[in-house]
């Protein structure tokens, strides 16, 4: 990573999740200059919050390590974290982009030695763990975070805690006077890789996510299953910290539903099948371990069918073709009770579980029309492939609800689309 003066032969990549990293790296490894910006303090996005991938059950951190190593070795990618796009104007080959960098209060001197965190006692909700746990107000967002640099939370700036952190730093890396910085860059093409956010589960009122402690989302569950996550990888339910053994998954939580998201989010079936294996793995032959998957259609497309069949073969996993009507809570135990009808032959159920996981739908973090005037998106806000979008190209889930593999594929394609633009500029200027 090096200093970079952006020109109209530079590609701006907005978003440093796996799609943005991929687009940036693939373009840079073709010899292009890239400015990669990320809103949060470190790269990696949602993928870094996953415990495992389907269908291989390998760890996303592994690919992230390769990608960060590629970044460290590549001088053509310039990274700005805690930075957001505030405005985009211009046309293909010549965009003016306004950026805003929030203060990190830590400069590049930081060696990630951790002395500041030791000096600070106040804690903030841990956003990396979807606020399920807490983290010190001077923190490295997660152990694999890149750039490997701490962050001072604004809540302790101007307090004794902030000063203590500053005093503890032996490397002159803390600067509590940092201010938000606005600036403008000129670029030739833009790859929009701001990814997705989980649908707001509280809006699915019949499932009572906002009322019942033991109804959680799939993304939260994923953090719980991570050994470095809020429960140390243990399947402890939030209400009483008891080990949950009888687990329900509700598919299409928010998706395929005109009341919420009308599209199918594509990944949730596979995510649930994957997560069902966590439970099987945790409990081995424990006869009390049970997984119930409530679904409308299981969408295990292409070779993923193998994975579906494998899970189907597990006697601990039951598939119930039913959109759960609603959840109530057994007040004495805190158990969620799922009500509905298994439509394959009409069987009514009132099933009590230890924990219920909502396979939550995907929606774009930034809607197409919010990026720049005239941007074309679909009805759900995902960016369309459309010539009228000029040289602003979607990569990954900003354009479609995609799994990781397809996101990376799409990001690679986006990198080429951007390269085509800057190559035309270069050819014209040569």
């Amino acid at each position: 990573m090096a200093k970079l003066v952006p020109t109209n032969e530079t590609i701006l990549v907005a978003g440093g999740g796996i799609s943005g990293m991929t687009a940036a790296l693939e373009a840079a490894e073709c010899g292009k200059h890239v400015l990669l910006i990320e809103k949060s303090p470190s790269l990696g996005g949602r993928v870094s919050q996953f415990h495992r991938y389907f269908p291989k059950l390998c760890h996303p951190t592994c690919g992230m390590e390769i990608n960060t190593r590629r970044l460290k070795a590549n001088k053509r990618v310039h990274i700005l974290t805690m930075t957001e796009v505030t405005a985009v104007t211009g046309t293909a080959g010549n965009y003016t982009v306004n950026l805003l960098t929030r203060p990190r209060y830590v400069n590049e001197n930081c060696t990630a030695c951790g002395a500041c965190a030791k000096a600070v006692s106040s804690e903030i909700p841990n956003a990396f763990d979807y606020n399920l746990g807490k983290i010190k107000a001077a923190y490295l967002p997660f152990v694999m975070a890149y750039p490997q640099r701490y962050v001072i939370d604004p809540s302790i700036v101007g307090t004794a805690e902030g000063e203590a952190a500053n005093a503890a730093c032996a490397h002159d890396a803390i600067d509590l006077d940092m201010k938000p910085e606005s600036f403008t860059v000129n670029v030739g093409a833009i790859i929009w890789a701001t990814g997705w956010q989980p649908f707001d589960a509280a809006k699915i009122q019949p499932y009572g996510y906002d009322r019942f402690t033991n109804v959680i989302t799939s993304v939260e569950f994923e953090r719980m299953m991570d050994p470095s996550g809020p429960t140390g990888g243990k399947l402890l339910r939030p209400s009483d910290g008891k080990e949950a053994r009888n687990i329900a998954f509700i598919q299409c939580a928010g998706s395929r539903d005109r009341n919420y998201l009308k599209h199918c989010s594509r990944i949730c079936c596979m995510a649930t099948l994957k997560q069902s294996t966590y439970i099987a793995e945790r409990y081995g032959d424990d006869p009390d371990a049970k997984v119930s998957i409530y679904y409308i259609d299981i969408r295990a497309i292409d070779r993923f069918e193998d994975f579906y069949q494998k899970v189907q073969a597990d006697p601990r996993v039951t598939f119930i073709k039913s959109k759960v009507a609603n959840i109530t809570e057994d007040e004495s135990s805190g158990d969620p009770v799922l009500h509905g009808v298994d439509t394959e032959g009409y069987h009514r159920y009132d099933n009590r579980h230890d924990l219920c996981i909502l396979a939550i739908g995907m929606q774009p973090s930034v809607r197409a029309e919010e990026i720049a005037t005239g941007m074309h998106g679909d009805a759900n806000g995902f960016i369309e492939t459309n010539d009228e979008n000029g040289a602003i190209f979607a990569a990954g889930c900003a354009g479609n609800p995609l799994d990781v593999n397809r996101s990376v594929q799409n990001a690679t394609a986006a990198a080429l689309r951007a390269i085509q633009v800057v190559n035309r500029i270069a050819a014209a200027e040569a």
Partner: protein
Amino acid sequence: MSDRRMAVGNYRNDFLKEVEANVEDGEWVKMCMQCGVCAGSCPLGPYWEHPPQEIFMMIRAGLRDDVLSSESMWMCTSCYNCIVRCPRELPITHIMHGLANYAHRLGLAPKMNPTRRFAKLFWNNIAAGGRANELKLSLGLYFMDGFATGIKKSLQMLPIGLGMLKTRRLNPFGLLAGGNCKDRKGIQAMLKKAKELEDKRKGFA
């Protein structure tokens, strides 16, 4: 629930078309994606022989008699739970009303179904004078099955009736008056016209 497995069905699309043409909001039936949320949401669900989503499938399968003679739709309490939860925004409550109405009009609805009989009573009660006469309605309900049963039911309901009377929430003279709009005639003519138009639309004329 008895063995609900139906005989081998020979699927035709005719009934779906009939429903689309003649049943209130019947054109929505095809939009069901068989998720079953309606079936699970119904407060009287356990009493439905065929829950709404299954009825939709039966319509698609051409099981006309099974659907129209079913008691199921008559279990609808009009609570609208199914409507607000349906991911396809099907107006299920209305479709159930529509199917019940259609079956009733065709004379295929179960004759002794109490809700069917009460509903008829109710409508006739309000259609007569434009407003509901609660006393007539209750007595009509109790005497539906003849005088003796009526007396028995009335006695069962006597404490409630007395309570209502005592709190002045029931008009003891309601048999004679009450429940009438001023423009009774206009209302009756209006309803006659509406029925006529509907009959024509739905092939009853």
